[in-house]
């Protein structure tokens, strides 16, 4: 018998990004392809490096907050929340109850806004354009609430060490009630249009499967970790602010619709978290001390010169955001080192995308939900 002659094939290097519609920012992926098959992916980062850590060493503690905003610019409120919590823990500041309520309210609204972008752009990656615009329409309401309260729509500098820059705008609570109703309807619509769309499920289920043990070893967090079935949420496991007062579930991936830890489950966890955030917001609306006239700036210390070091972590929409801060009794921190969730999550990309097609690589990248500002810092 004659041996069939194997066709000579060559690997091709495809450069995806930094100018590419689906890299979600200035990320460059060096993709080594065999036909359409992904042999290896090498992410090249650093196009958005803005020396956050060095800047932070030359600023006073409150001056660092705007720089924190620009790290995870999609969820600036959550980033601020993480930073101010860290400094407050360093200085043992008691924050008024009202301030805590407003912070949690805004952090959860921000989580919905951030997940809206994640889900919408994920739809774009899969080729569905319309859900993206529905989600942006709803996100607009959230940004309006932020704008009314602090004047900014995107980068807020709203949460200050020990307090807030402005009190809650009187319109926000009624708007919020209206928003919860509207958002639940949109949630249902997105589930119909995208999540349980047969084509979408075919595209995402079983793609980019991440093993729970690998996820833990690789430092994955947030929806990426929870999609593997690991019930880990800083809000529950290491409560900060007043998260222990609210009743909510930690969303985890399920093997009911797809393989545990795959791209579909990462999307599914975000969809569930959106619903859980709405539950928290509803509870805040019930519990909010409406007659409390405390000045939101009353607990802001006159001198912010903490001494010592701290590692404090919070749950942002992308996962566990940690701040390691060393202070030497000066107005400027000696060292600020953020542990950014998207960075750790992205580092697992080559591991979970080998052996899939180019189209799958884009879907996997979209499911990780990276923000380059936070990765490059």
């Amino acid at each position, binding site marked *: 018998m004659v041996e069939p002659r194997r066709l000579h094939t060559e690997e091709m290097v495809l450069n995806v990004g930094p100018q590419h*519609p*689906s890299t979600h920012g200035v990320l460059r992926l060096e993709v080594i392809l065999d036909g*359409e098959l992904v042999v290896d992916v090498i992410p090249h980062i650093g196009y958005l490096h803005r020396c956050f850590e060095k800047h932070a060493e030359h600023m006073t503690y409150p001056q660092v907050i705007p720089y924190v905003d620009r790290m995870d610019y999609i969820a600036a409120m959550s980033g601020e929340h993480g930073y101010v919590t860290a400094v407050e823990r360093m200085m043992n500041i008691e924050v008024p109850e009202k301030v805590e309520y407003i912070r949690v309210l805004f952090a959860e609204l921000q989580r919905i806004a951030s997940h809206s972008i994640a889900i919408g752009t994920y739809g774009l990656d899969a080729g*569905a354009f*319309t859900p993206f*615009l529905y989600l942006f329409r709803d996100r607009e309401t959230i940004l309006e609430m932020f704008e009314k309260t602090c004047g900014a729509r995107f980068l807020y500098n709203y949460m200050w060490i020990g307090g807030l820059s402005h009190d809650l705008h009187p319109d926000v609570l009624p708007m919020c009630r209206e928003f919860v109703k509207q958002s639940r309807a949109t949630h249902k619509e997105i589930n119909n249009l*995208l999540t349980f769309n047969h*084509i979408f499920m075919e*595209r995402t289920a079983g793609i980019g499967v991440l093993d729970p043990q690998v996820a833990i070893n690789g430092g994955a967090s947030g929806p990426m970790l929870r999609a593997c079935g690991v019930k880990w949420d800083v809000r529950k496991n290491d409560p900060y602010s007043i998260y222990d007062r609210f009743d909510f579930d930690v969303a985890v991936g399920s093997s009911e619709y797809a393989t545990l830890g795959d791209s579909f489950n990462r999307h599914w966890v975000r969809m569930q978290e959106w619903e859980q955030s709405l539950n928290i917001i509803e509870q805040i609306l019930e519990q909010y001390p409406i007659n409390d006239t405390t000045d939101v700036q009353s607990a802001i210390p006159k001198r912010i010169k903490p001494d010592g070091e701290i590692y404090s972590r919070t749950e942002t929409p992308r996962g566990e955001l940690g701040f390691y801060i060393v202070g030497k009794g000066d107005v400027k921190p000696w060292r600020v080192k953020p542990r950014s969730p998207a960075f750790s999550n992205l580092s697992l990309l080559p591991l979970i995308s080998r052996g899939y097609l180019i*189209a799958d690589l884009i879907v996997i990248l979209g499911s990780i939900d990276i923000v380059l500002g936070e990765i490059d810092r």
Partner: protein
Amino acid sequence: MQILQAIYEFFAGLLKPGMLSLLLSILVYAAIPLVFILLYALVAILGEMKISAWLQDRLGPMRTGPKGTLQPIADIMKLLQKEDTTPTAADRTLYQLAPWVIFIGAYAAFAVLPFSAVYIGARINTGVFYILSIGSLTVVSILLAGWGSNNKYSLIGAMRSVAQIISYEIPVALAVLTVVLVAGSMDLQTIANLQGGGIQNWFLFGGPKRIAGFGGSMNIVLTPVMLIAFAIYFVGSLAETNRVPFDVPEAESELVAGYHTEYSGMKFAIFFLAEYASMFAVGSIAATLFLGGWQSPFGYTSATIGIFWFILKGLAFVFVQMWIRWTLPRLRVDQVMNVCWKVLIPFGLVAVVAASVLTVALK
């Protein structure tokens, strides 16, 4: 033919009867579909913008002209003014040729479309066969564009596209064959003529009920077969025109713009125009084969009104294609092939066999 005659007589009166007048009249006659395509493209581009806006809860273009109606003209003006670039590494001949080949393919299909009882560019007795074969010209053009651009994204897009279009020609041909078997003709005008007299005579519902040779009123039993054939044709035509959910060759999120990534200005516009033209072409072929062509759904119609029904049905298909585009995500390249080989072709074969058995039994 009457129209060509009239044009020839006009030129013969103006100049003198002979070869020159004949050539001129043929040119003018051939330009009628071109004018139609250009006018239709303006409507379709605006339609796409407004329909997507309507589906996405926004307004769409509003500033250019009343309610943004002049936006397509502004867009075309913009494309005309743009620099027509050719990448240095490109194969110039192939690169320049590709847009024209794709446009010729789309334009040539219009030659045999029966717009009405009196207007059909060329009535040839193998019209259906002609349409299927001229549609394959798209593959050549896409391959030229993908190879000639010397761009990896273009090349991957072209490879995907060729695999996809060649595969989908089979189910489309099977679906068309089902109608041809029942109608007993490959002439599109004959197929349209048979379906006159109302909605019940459309091939979607088994074909003409009044003609004994076609099984008379009994051929309603062909309806399920025809519905399958229609569904196969529609899905297949979406894939052949690279529309969502089969737009993997130009998948924006993966391949930037697929085979036409490197094209700019007027060349890009021609690719665009060809895509819109073939959207209408496949829609109107579906209408002719299954939905009565230029025939009115309510009884018989005159030749002039026939054009109205034909264009209306074609545009309805274009609308559905846009509707699908703005609703569904995109399939992956291997899934596209699975749909074709594992679903459409087996069902297509079943439809062809069932149609032949039933047609023989009814006669």
